[in-house]
């Protein structure tokens, strides 16, 4: 186990608070769940009343761009191969559509609402992610 130190943990907590605050405000102001898989789906494939999702998706990129431009954050290294990115992306799309949500919709909003579905979904995708890490190491990909 490696613990990266208190400065890193402070950043992690500030990041988590920003995610939580955005989720709370989106519900309090707009009445919508901040579930990113659903928001990206609607931004891509649903028009009309769901046009607000386009602005949220734009913001998802504007926030990081500001942090990078101002030097408050660095671009992390990406070691995933193209094959991993494309297969993984496909599975993320299929899985979050079937499972009605991802880390944000289930993990932050759903658990916040006390939804049994979200609690079980979150435990399940974390467990399958952990098993996949083991499998990747076993075949030499990690």
């Amino acid at each position, binding site marked *: 186990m490696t613990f990266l130190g208190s400065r890193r943990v402070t950043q*992690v907590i*500030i*990041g*988590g608070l*920003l*995610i*939580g605050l*955005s*989720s*709370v405000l*989106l519900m309090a102001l*707009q*009445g919508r*769940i*901040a579930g*990113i898989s659903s928001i*990206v*789906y609607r931004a*891509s494939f649903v028009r009309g009343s769901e046009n607000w999702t386009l*602005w949220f998706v734009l*913001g*998802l*990129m*504007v*926030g*990081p761009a500001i*942090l990078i431009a101002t030097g408050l954050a660095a671009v*992390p290294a*990406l*070691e*995933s191969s*193209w094959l991993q*990115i494309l297969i*993984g*992306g*496909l*599975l*993320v*799309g*299929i*899985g*979050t559509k079937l*499972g*009605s949500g991802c*880390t*944000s919709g289930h993990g*932050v*909003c759903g*658990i*916040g609402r006390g939804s049994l*579905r979200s609690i079980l979904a*979150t435990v399940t*995708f*974390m*467990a*399958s992610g952990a098993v*996949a*890490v*083991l499998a*990747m190491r076993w075949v030499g990909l990690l």
Partner: protein
Amino acid sequence: MSALLVTVLGAMFGAGLVLSGMTDPAYIRGFLDVTGDWRPELAFVMAAALALSLPFFQLIQPKMAKPIFSAQFSLPLATQVDARLLGGAVIFGVGWTVSGYCPGPGVASVAYLEPKAFGFVAAMLVGFKIADWFAPAK
């Protein structure tokens, strides 16, 4: 709600993903590597987000008649735990580890102008459509 305000909320969320380390695939795999060199910090991301969302959804939102800028709350109605939910979650978890991204961080990483982030988002959109085509929601 104005486009500007929604963009600001999205930016807040995106900045949170970057600061917390969620857009760093090595960090994600380190968190999910519970039997190896486990890096537990990402648990604090969810804990910090829940520290706000739990009290809001449990105590404040139920007392609000409606959202401030819209006519009604739009909340998920499904309560059934079924194979679709859990099977989807299993597939998502594997995709998360294999790519290193979940949906938000994948989109946020487009801001890094990382070609593979564009590739991830494109593949995810195809995945959405595959689920729609082959297993449409009833």
